[in-house]
């Protein structure tokens, strides 16, 4: 059911059209139908956005919904609700489920689950190789026809350079990117945290920066040689950013993403052996963090993506060495980045919104992340000044493994429209959203 909504008096920030002004926005039939000052309601439901920012709905290129196979950690419904609370109206889901998303019927299953959840737009990725084993390519043509938005073995690197070459070549028939989880396993070994001062202090096995950068360099060279579309997941190192910057200058068809936690935290966070700070790639140094911020600012890094990775409390409580890698991110992403980057003047609001909207849309070549007239009416309204404390009890996600528990954040998602439907209003799900 769609309806007619007039979003009134907000500061509309839409980098896809170079728009940043106080104006009105009319939504009808699931689409943006008009932008302009002093629009008349004419029977439309009015949503006052006075004093707030109106943005295109956010898009997250990197989400683990754990479905099928690990529904105790997250389901399509709980993950979608977490996304909405974070202002995301499009999420792209990774293929490392059980079964792996390496056949059309798993994609059909996810689409059906998402239709049941009925909240937001879900773009599933297909695997690069069958069972993520790195041995045989998936039927990328069929996966694309079923709805795959890209290909990734995320969670596992494609270890063989020869296989990665084939994937980058073959995927060209689909026009979709290959998303690389850059990790040279013989360098990361049994590491649990970044190999640096903190690992040396705490007596923990380290994951050196080169576990990432060796693979980044390899994949950039292969993308350059094959002309394939490469997207690099969760960059974490200064050197990785530099390699991407140089490759883009050469015209390599590459895009890259960074997570909110790698933009906000560094290895010192591990000092208390708290597994809520354990993820792969690990939190790196202050120097890496600054290079990632710079890369996001200058466009070397295209998108912010959460790498939302839910895990049950029991697993995460096992202690730092035994706990699984990964943190949840959907419900805190924009607020953390507003607090840490925008309010502190490190990146402009427009750049953050760009990295959450039109830039990720461009990575996958989809018509989202814009408020252009005629586009699907995915809209996120933000109160930049609202302060709140992160409490996992209020999470919509099934999992609570966030590194930001207890943080006081400034900036909050208040309203969300997806496909023209108001699903979240004044910080609450509407009837249409449940």
């Amino acid at each position, binding site marked *: 059911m769609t309806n007619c909504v007039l979003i009134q008096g907000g500061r509309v920030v839409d980098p896809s059209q170079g728009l940043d002004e106080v104006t009105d926005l009319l939504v009808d039939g699931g689409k943006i139908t008009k932008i302009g000052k002093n629009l008349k309601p004419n029977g439309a439901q009015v949503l006052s956005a006075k004093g707030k920012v109106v943005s295109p709905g956010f898009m997250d290129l990197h989400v683990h919904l754990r479905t099928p196979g690990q529904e105790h950690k997250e389901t399509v419904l709980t993950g979608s609700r977490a996304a909405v609370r974070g202002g995301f109206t499009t999420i792209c889901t990774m293929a490392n489920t059980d079964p792996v998303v390496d056949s059309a019927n798993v994609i059909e299953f996810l689409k059906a689950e998402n239709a049941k959840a009925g909240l937001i737009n879900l773009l599933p990725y297909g695997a690069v190789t069958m069972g993520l084993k790195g041995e045989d390519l998936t039927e990328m043509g069929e996966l694309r026809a079923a709805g795959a938005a890209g290909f990734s073995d995320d969670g596992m690197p494609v270890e063989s350079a020869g296989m990665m070459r084939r994937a980058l070549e073959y995927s060209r028939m689909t026009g979709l990117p290959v998303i690389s989880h850059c990790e040279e396993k013989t360098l990361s070994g049994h590491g649990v945290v970044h*190999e*640096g*001062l903190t*690992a*040396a*202090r*705490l*007596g*923990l096995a*380290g994951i050196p920066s080169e576990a990432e950068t060796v693979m980044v360099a390899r994949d950039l060279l292969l993308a350059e040689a094959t002309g394939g579309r490469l997207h690099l997941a969760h960059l974490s190192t200064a050197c990785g950013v530099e390699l991407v910057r140089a490759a883009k200058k050469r015209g390599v068809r590459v895009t890259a993403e960074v997570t909110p936690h790698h933009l906000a935290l560094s290895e010192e966070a591990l000092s*208390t*052996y708290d597994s809520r700070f354990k993820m792969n790639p690990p939190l790196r140094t202050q120097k890496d963090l600054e290079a990632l911020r710079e890369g996001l600012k200058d466009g070397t890094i295209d998108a912010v993506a959460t790498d939302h990775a839910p895990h049950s409390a*029991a697993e995460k*409580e*096992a*202690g*730092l*060495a*035994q*706990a699984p890698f990964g943190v949840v991110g959907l419900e805190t992403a924009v607020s953390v980045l507003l607090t840490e980057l925008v309010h502190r003047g490190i990146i402009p609001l427009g750049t953050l919104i760009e990295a959450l909207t039109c830039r990720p849309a461009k990575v996958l070549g989809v018509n989202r992340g814009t408020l252009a007239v005629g586009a699907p009416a995915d809209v996120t309204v933000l109160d930049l000044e609202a302060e709140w404390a992160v409490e996992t009890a209020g999470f919509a996600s099934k999992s609570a493994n966030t590194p930001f528990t207890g943080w006081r954040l400034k900036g909050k998602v208040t309203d969300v429209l997806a496909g023209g439907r108001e699903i979240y209003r004044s910080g609450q799900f509407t009837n249409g959203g449940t």
Partner: protein
Amino acid sequence: MIWRRKDLLGLEELSKDEISLLLDQAEAFKEVSLRPIKKVPALRGRTVALCFLEPSTRTRASFELAAKRLSADLLSFQGSSSSIAKGESVLDTARNIEAMRVDVLVLRHSTSGAAAQVARGVKCSVVNAGDGSHEHPTQGLVDLYTIKEKKGRIEGLNVLIVGDILHSRVARSDLWGLTKMGAKVTLCGPPTLVPPAMEGLGAKISYRLEEALPQADVVIALRLQLERQQEKYIPSFREYTRAYGLDRAKLERAKPELIVMHPGPVNRGVELSPEVADGPQSVILDQVTNGIAVRMAALYLVAGAHQDSPEVISRSEATRDLTAENEISHPPGAGSK
């Protein structure tokens, strides 16, 4: 200076004064072990649990004797079974032990950070008896005590630690303790086993023993675990011994008053040649003897027994001679914590 910590988890978090307090307390207890009746009532009525979830002979025996010589009641757990050795259950194990009204839990675990994790989850005191590659604070204190005993001071000495620094909890505790007490520490070993980041913790790094040894006043050799060769950190034990094993020929280039230490157990012929391990410069057995006094001090202080008679570190009470008593009638630590 009064001890105010619930736990002893590592030397990194301790101040110089706290380390001095532990060493002074150990000094007071050392004499107890020289008596015919090696027992004081300092922890009478208190219960100490030894929870060793990783194989250990020497450290466990040392803690056991320390607790017994303080008249504590003793409970001993050994986690040979794999279920208990896993991180999942260590906190549950500790909580179960605590539920038996134990005052001090001494924990050995193969995972770095295990002691801190348990200490956060229980109200009783926790003494870290070695957690993974992180810290082994009582061994670090033993080394400090022994150096002070043999050299008369710690400040200004050059201490050389040789071996597998990467995986060594002893090296980390020694490094923290020694630098806080004013010694200069050099870490030496094959580059694969000496993380460069350790320089950021205040140590000098050397890959050549023959260059580092002549300046040393103290050398601490570490045990080389057999698995390091399978893990490709070193090509062979033969080459390791040639480059980093201490033998008489290498010691000829060292100061004559150099002392040689080792936390044990020694791989004879690997990190130490027999003539060095048993030679006049070796103080390895003194370390073992001192271990009991140091662990008595650690148990006594974390148990809070000293708080019943503050300002006394306390020869008069804590080390009261029982030789003349058949019954322990006036335990100084009888009050509640």
